[in-house]
């Protein structure tokens, strides 16, 4: 068994092609991209260039025209239906521009919901969710998300993305709705949390200020021509 098979990258993309129904050109055309375990990468690109679409492809929410996406060594599109959904719930955490917290659920329950679909032992859900929130500085775990500040809501969203111990966190314009100061705090939080949990982070953004936060950066359009990756960490 090779070293890579024993310890696969968080993300591997090979020959990925995607185009919208009726379109003549691919909006996503990535020959190769690898993200090592725990690695963090910023992917930039203008509006409408397919940044969110790429994340949806990686999460298995849409089907590529061709190519392969592997998360933690598992080819995402080779599994189907509920199996893929469960795999996504367990191996991929997602953070959005708007935090998408579930209304009517407390902060703790918002995090626990992620565990509901993950296959993680049910008896551990509450403690695990509470610990993750506490680690991220949320003490009022029973508060309604509406009672929390925007920054605290962001922490809850990050806790939810990380609670299942995913191989990969996908962040879709995570600071677009925040002012620069809050954005910096949120990014610090997310990047540190991913490091502590050993999760790789792929962040897409059109915010130029984000560039300095990532050692590894890529522009979506440029990925089409070249294979990018740091190989196995």
């Amino acid at each position, binding site marked *: 068994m090779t070293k890579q098979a024993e310890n696969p990258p968080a993300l591997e993309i090979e020959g990925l092609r995607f185009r919208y129904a009726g379109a003549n050109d691919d909006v996503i055309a990535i020959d190769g991209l690898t993200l090592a375990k725990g690695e963090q990468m910023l992917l930039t690109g203008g509006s409408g260039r397919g940044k969110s679409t790429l994340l*949806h492809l990686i999460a298995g929410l849409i089907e590529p025209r061709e190519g392969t996406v592997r998360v933690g060594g598992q080819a995402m599109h080779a599994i189907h239906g509920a199996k893929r959904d469960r795999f996504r*719930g367990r191996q991929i955490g997602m953070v959005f521009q708007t935090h998408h917290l579930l209304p*009517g*659920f407390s902060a703790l329950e918002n995090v*626990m919901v992620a565990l*509901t679909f993950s296959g993680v032992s049910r008896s551990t859900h509450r403690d695990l969710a509470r610990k993750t929130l506490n680690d991220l500085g949320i003490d009022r775990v029973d508060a309604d998300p509406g009672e929390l500040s925007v920054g605290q809501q962001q922490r809850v969203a990050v806790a939810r993305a990380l609670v299942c111990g995913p191989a990969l966190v996908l962040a879709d*314009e995570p600071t677009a709705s925040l002012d620069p100061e809050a954005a910096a705090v949120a990014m610090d939080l997310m990047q540190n949390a991913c490091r502590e949990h050993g999760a790789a982070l792929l962040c897409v953004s059109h915010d130029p200020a984000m560039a300095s936060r990532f050692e590894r950066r890529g522009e979506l359009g440029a990925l089409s021509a070249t294979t990018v990756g740091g190989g196995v960490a």
Partner: protein
Amino acid sequence: MAIGDATIVQRSMSARMFSTVTTVALVAVSVGLMLLLLSMKDSGRKSFERGIGNMHMLISRDSSPLVSVLNGVFYANPPANPITWQEFEGLRGSLRFPLVMIPTQQGDSYRGRPVMATVPEFFTDFEPVQGEPFEFASGEAFDAPFEVVVGSEAARAAVLSVGDTINLRHGGPRDPDAHVHDEYDYTVVGILEPTGSPHDRALFTDLTSSWTLHAHDRRLQEIGPDAVTTPDDLVDADKLITGIYGRAIGRPGSSGPPAYLPQVLVQLRRNPSFVVAEPSGEINRLFEIVGNIDKILIAMAGAVMASSAIAIMLAMYNSMEQRRRQIALLRVLGASRARIFRLVIVESALIGLIGAVLGTLVATVGGVVVAGVLEARLGLVVTPSFGWQLAGAVVGATVGLAVVAGLVPAIAGYKTSVVRNLRPLG
């Protein structure tokens, strides 16, 4: 503890509290109406069957057998055309078969409750419910004039007990010309146990005192306001009855009517001045008439049920528009399409279940209210009740209907596009 489907469904319902409550209320009203109609239908028939008891025939001079039964047994109105005591004795003497004949007379009332004058055998030979004779909660049957026995419901409503003195009203409960006879005090000598029949709301006294009451009115006109009337002043014209409860005596131990009953009826019907009703047959005929109304009411209740199912579907479907983002998020978190479908179906079923259970309570409370109104307005003693089998069947059907109603929104949830609904707000 983990978050399960039940919590997700419960939170979803709480988040749309107004919609959930109004939909549940609509289902509850529909189920309550359906159960109430079904229980009233059954209890109405039972109530009528209980009233006729072990009577085989009712002889009167009413306009038809059905009217005779409604007046003579269910106290709908005092019968208008009397039978003289001489005619009664002539009839009794002419029959060649063993027959219990209990003369009755109606026309008086007490505080809106009918008074039936009869003979003491009414309490021993007539059973208001087949196999269940009258029983006294206190006291005993009258055995002298101006004594009165009170039905359980009448005693409760008028707060009467043994030893009380009352004055009867000459005239039926709805007779505008009725007047109270203060000059004749009646003593309550017995209170009956409830029978679940119309007799519970009646008072019973002996024929002689009733005749004396009526004779006094005659004598007031003949003699003047100083007239004093006693049973000794009665003349044949005063001795009138309005009905005869008849029972053909069968062999000891036999529960059904004796084989000679048809011959008795034929003999009685030879005299066209009498109306000879077979109460059980008349009740069946009555329910054949009102049976169609029952069907219409049940069809209406069914339509209300169907509309409540549509309401569930619309409420759930409309909520889908608000919940697409939530569904998309659950999908991202690992919920499968099938799980989303199941969550919506469970929510719909839960709305149906809560509505159905509340509807059962509505029917129970509503039954008491409707029974009270029916008794107060129509004098019909109805005890609406439904067994757990009927309630269970209606609840089950409601949940089934709710599941069907949930299919369309569940399919909408199943098809919800994750990508489209995770776009940033605004």
